C-alpha cells in the first residue's frame, strides 16, 4: 500500500506542536519518513532545552555539571536524561511531618510552573496536598503506585493531559490494513467500564479525568467504575513510610503517626468490602451493557477478578467481539493460577487478547501497542535513547543495540521530558519492521536491570528486614 507522505505544513505544525501528533491516525504517524520525524525531534528538543534550562533548576544543575550550554544534536540530550528516581528524590519524612510547603518547594525544582505563590499550609495528607495543587495550579500531579514504597510525583499540567487523552484513544487503533485499523469508528459513543478506582492521582484515574475532559466534554456518565471512590496517595505511601520508619529505629517509630495507622486500618476495612463491590459492579454492567460494544479499562489483576465473577455466574462472551480493551500494566506480581489472558478473553468475548503495549507513566504521550510481528514502535513524539548500563555512555543510534532505555517525550512542555528507565531494551535502528511502520524497532523482550542482577539463591549476611505489610502489598497488586 502507498504511504501518505506528510505534507510540509504538517511537519511545521508538528515542529511547533508535537503534542498534536495524536490528531493524526496511527497509520499517518508511522508513515512519516523517519528523517522527517528526527528533524521534528531535534527542533523541539532544542526549543525545550532553551526554554526549560532557565525555568527548571534541576535541569540547570544537571546541564551545568555536564557542561552543556545548548543542544545541537540529538546525542547531546543523552547525558541530560533524568533517572526516574529524580521524581522521588524528596526525604520521605516530609510527608510524615506534613511539611507540604517543603514538598512543594522540592517539586518546584522540577517544573517550569511557578509554585512560589501556592499556599499548602494546612493540607491534610498527601491527598490534601494534591487537591490543593489541583485547585491552585495548572498542575495535575501524577504519582506512582509506590510498589517500591516511595511515591514519585510527576508534575504534569492540565494542558499536557490533552495529548494523553488523545494518545489513549489512538492506542486502540491499528496500522495500515491491520485488523484494528478502524477500531475508532463510533469510539465516542462507547461506554467506558473502568475496573478500579475512578478518583485519585494514579495513572488510571488521571487518564480517565483527561478522557472525560478532553474526549467526552466533561460527561462523567461516559465512565462507570467498579470503585467510584478515590485511591488515596496516603495509603499507597504507607508501605514505604512504615519501612523507612523501621530503618530509622525508635526515631522512626515515634514518627509513625496514629492518624497514619488509622488511615491504613480504614483502608484495609474498605478493602474487605471489595468483593461485594466488584460483584455489584458486575451485576450492574451485565444488566446494562451485556451484548454491547464497550471500552474496558483496568489492570490485568483487576479485570481478571471481574472475569472470575463472570465465571462464577456461569457467563461468557459478555460483550461484542469488537469491544475495546485497555488492560495495561503487568501482573503486578500477582500469580494467576491459569492463563489469565484466556479467562479475560472468554469473559469479554474477544478472539484475541489485546496486543501488549509498552510505555511508562512518566510519558505524557507514549504508550503504543506491539505490531502484529511482536515489535514495539516508539511513537514519533518519543526520542529513544540506548545507553550502556554500566558506563552510561550513549550507544550508537544504528544497527541493533542492547542497553538501558531512555526517551525524550516531545509532548511534555512544562518539565524536562527526558528520562532514563530501568529497562534493558534491544533496539534495531536502521531496518524498518516488516509491518510497514517507519522508524526504529524495539524488540519485545524487555527486562528490568534490577531483575537481571536479581538475587538467585544468594545468601549474604548484610542487609535489613523489610517492614512488610500484607494488607498494603495486596493493594499494590490490585493497582494498575
Amino acid at each position, binding site marked *: 500500500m502507498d504511504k501518505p507522505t506528510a505534507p510540509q505544513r504538517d511537519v511545521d505544525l508538528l515542529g511547533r506542536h508535537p503534542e498534536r501528533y495524536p490528531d493524526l491516525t496511527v497509520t499517518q504517524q508511522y508513515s512519516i519518513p523517519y528523517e522527517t520525524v528526527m528533524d521534528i525531534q531535534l527542533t523541539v528538543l532544542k526549543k525545550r532545552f532553551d526554554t526549560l534550562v532557565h525555568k527548571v533548576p534541576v535541569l540547570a544543575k544537571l546541564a551545568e555539571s555536564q557542561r552543556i550550554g545548548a543542544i545541537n544534536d540529538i546525542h547531546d540530550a543523552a547525558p541530560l536524561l533524568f533517572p526516574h528516581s529524580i521524581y522521588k*528524590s524528596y526525604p520521605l519524612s516530609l510527608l510524615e511531618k506534613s511539611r507540604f510547603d517543603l514538598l512543594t518547594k522540592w517539586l518546584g525544582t522540577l517544573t517550569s510552573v511557578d509554585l512560589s505563590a501556592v499556599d499548602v499550609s494546612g493540607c491534610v495528607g498527601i491527598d490534601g496536598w494534591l487537591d490543593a495543587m489541583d485547585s491552585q495550579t495548572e498542575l495535575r500531579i501524577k504519582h506512582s503506585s509506590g510498589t517500591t514504597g516511595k511515591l514519585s510525583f510527576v508534575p504534569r499540567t492540565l494542558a499536557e493531559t490533552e495529548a494523553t487523552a488523545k494518545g489513549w484513544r489512538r492506542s486502540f487503533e491499528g496500522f495500515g490494513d491491520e485488523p484494528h485499523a478502524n477500531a475508532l469508528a463510533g469510539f465516542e459513543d462507547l461506554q467506558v467500564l473502568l475496573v478500579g478506582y475512578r478518583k485519585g492521582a494514579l495513572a488510571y484515574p488521571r487518564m480517565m479525568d483527561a478522557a472525560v475532559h478532553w474526549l467526552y466534554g466533561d460527561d462523567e456518565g461516559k465512565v462507570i467504575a467498579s470503585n467510584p471512590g478515590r485511591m488515596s496517595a496516603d495509603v499507597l505511601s504507607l508501605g514505604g513510610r512504615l519501612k523507612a520508619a523501621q530503618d530509622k529505629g525508635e*526515631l522512626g517509630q515515634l514518627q509513625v503517626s496514629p492518624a497514619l495507622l488509622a488511615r491504613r486500618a480504614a483502608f484495609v476495612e474498605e478493602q474487605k468490602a471489595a468483593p461485594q463491590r466488584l460483584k455489584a459492579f458486575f451485576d450492574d454492567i451485565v444488566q446494562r451493557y451485556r451484548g454491547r460494544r464497550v471500552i474496558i479499562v483496568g489492570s490485568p489483576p483487576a479485570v481478571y477478578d471481574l472475569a472470575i465473577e463472570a465465571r462464577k455466574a456461569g457467563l461468557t462472551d459478555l460483550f461484542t467481539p469488537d469491544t475495546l480493551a485497555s488492560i495495561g500494566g503487568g501482573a503486578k506480581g500477582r500469580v494467576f493460577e491459569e492463563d489469565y489472558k484466556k479467562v479475560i478473553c472468554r469473559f469479554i468475548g474477544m478472539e484475541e487478547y489485546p496486543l501488549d503495549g509498552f510505555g511508562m507513566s512518566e510519558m505524557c504521550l507514549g504508550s503504543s501497542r506491539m505490531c502484529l510481528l511482536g515489535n514495539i514502535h516508539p511513537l514519533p513524539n518519543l526520542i529513544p535513547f540506548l545507553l550502556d548500563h554500566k558506563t552510561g555512555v550513549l550507544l550508537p543510534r544504528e544497527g541493533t543495540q542492547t542497553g538501558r532505555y531512555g526517551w525524550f517525550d516531545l509532548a511534555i512542555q512544562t518539565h524536562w521530558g527526558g528520562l532514563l528507565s530501568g529497562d534493558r531494551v534491544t533496539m534495531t535502528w536502521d531496518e524498518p519492521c516488516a509491518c510497514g511502520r517507519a522508524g526504529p524497532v524495539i524488540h519485545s523482550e524487555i527486562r528490568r536491570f534490577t531483575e537481571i542482577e536479581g538475587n538467585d539463591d*544468594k545468601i549474604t549476611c548484610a542487609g535489613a528486614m523489610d517492614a512488610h505489610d500484607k494488607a498494603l502489598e495486596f493493594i499494590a497488586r490490585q493497582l494498575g
Partner: protein
Amino acid sequence: MAKFNVPLILRGKVIEDADIEFGGRRGGSSFTSADVREHLDELPLSTPSALRDLHQLKFDDIADFLQEVGTRLSFRHNAYLQEAYELSVTTSGLSPQILKVIYETLGQGFGRSVVHQTADKSIGIPYLDGWVGMKLETGGHAWTRAFGARAVHIIAGNVPNVAAMSIMRNAVIRSDMIVKTPSNDPLTAAAVARTMIDMAPDHPITKHLSVVYWKGGDTRVEEALYTPAHVDKIVAWGGLASITHISKYIQPGIDLITLDPKLSSTIIGKEAFASDATMREVAGRAAVDIGHRNQEACHNARVVYIQTGTDKEGLTKANRFAQYLYDSIQALPPHISGPAVAPDPALAEEVDALKMSIGYYEVVGGGPTGAVIVSQIDEPVDFARLLGNRVANLVPFDSLETPIRSTNAYTQTIGIYPDSLRMELRDRLALHGAQRLVSLGYAGRFANIGPHDGIEPLRRMCKWIVDEEYRPESVALASMT
C-alpha cells in the same frame, strides 16, 4: 563464560557428576553440580549414635587436626582454594585483589590459638571434652556436657570466610555438619572439605562434614532432610532469603538458629571536628569501616552519624568531612577495597538522582568508585538499606539522641569515635539493639569471643545435656518425705 563443577561431598566421599547446571549471578559464571536428590539417603547421618567417634576425640586432637588443615590451606599450594578463588572472582562482589588476601589468609582461621580461643571463650573446653560435675545445693551431683548435634548450616556467601569459619566452629563442637552452600560461594566450603579428605580421609572430622549445593527452597531435598529424624539444628544465615524456605519445617525437635542479616553504622562525636588534622585522621578510620571489603559485609558502616551540628556551619563541616572521607576511601589499598565489582543499579539510580536533586542532599563522588552522600537534615537517606558499593551516608546531628534512637534490631556493629564516647553510649545503644560496639576503624576485625548478632551461636549449636545422680541415703526418695 567460565564453567565450574561444584562437587557434592558426603562425609569424605566426593561426587563429581555434573547432573544439573545452575546459573551463577551477575550473568557471570554458571556451575554444574551433582543432583543431591539422587543421594538423599546418604545425606542425613544414618543414626545419631554415629556421632560417637567425634566425641571420643579430645580437644587437642581436634586442635592438631585443624592446625594441620590450616597449614594445608595455603593458597599457593592448594589447587582447591585456587579454583574456589577463580569461581569467586566471577560471582563475588569482592575484587580479585581482596579475594586473594582472603584466600591467602583463610588458613589462619584454623590456627591453634584461634581454635583454642573459640572453644575456651565461648563454651569452655572441659564441657566439650566430657562431663563437668557439680554438687547440687539441693543435694546430689549433676554433670553437664555440651554435645555435638546433627546440624545443617545454610551459609552466607558474600565473604568466603563464612564457609571456613563455620567448618572450624563445627569441628570444635563435634557436630555432624551439612553445609548448604550459597550460589555466590559454592566452592570454598568444598575446597576445605577436599583438603581434609586428602589429608585424613578417615578422620572423624572429615567423616562428619558434607558440603552440598541445591537451590534453596527445593522442597524435594528440604522435605526429606529437614525433619527431626535427620536434623537437630539448622543454622541459617541470610534472614528471609533462607528463613522463608525453612520456617515451614520448624517443629518440635528442630532447633533453628538464625544469623540474621545486619547493617552497621558509625557514630562520630564532636571531638573529631576539633581540628582539620583530627578530621582527616578520623575520616581515615571511618573510611576503613566503610570501604573494607567493598562494603560487602554486615560489619561495614553504611550510615555515619557525625556530631557536627545541623546549623549552617555544621553543614559546611559535614560537607568538608565528606570530601576527606571520600578521598580516604579512594586511597584504601586495593587488597582492602576497590571500585564496585557488582554495581547495584537500583542504588546507582538513587545516587544519580540525589546528585542532581536540589535541597536535601550533597553528593561527593558517584559511579563505580563509590560516593559519600551528606544529608543536609539530621536523617539518613530513605534508601539507606541499599547502601553498598562504597556509598556512605553522612548524617549530621546536634544531639546524641539522634544516633542512639536510630539504632534498631537490625544494627550489628557500631564503630564509635572517640572511645570515651563509646563508654558513655554503650548501655543505651545495647538496649536499642546494637550488638557490637567497636573502636572506629576496627569494625572488620572480630575478636571472635562468642556472642555474635546478640546471641551465642556456638553454645546454641551444642546440645546441653545434664546427668543428675542422687542416693537415697543422702537425698530421701520423694515417697519417704
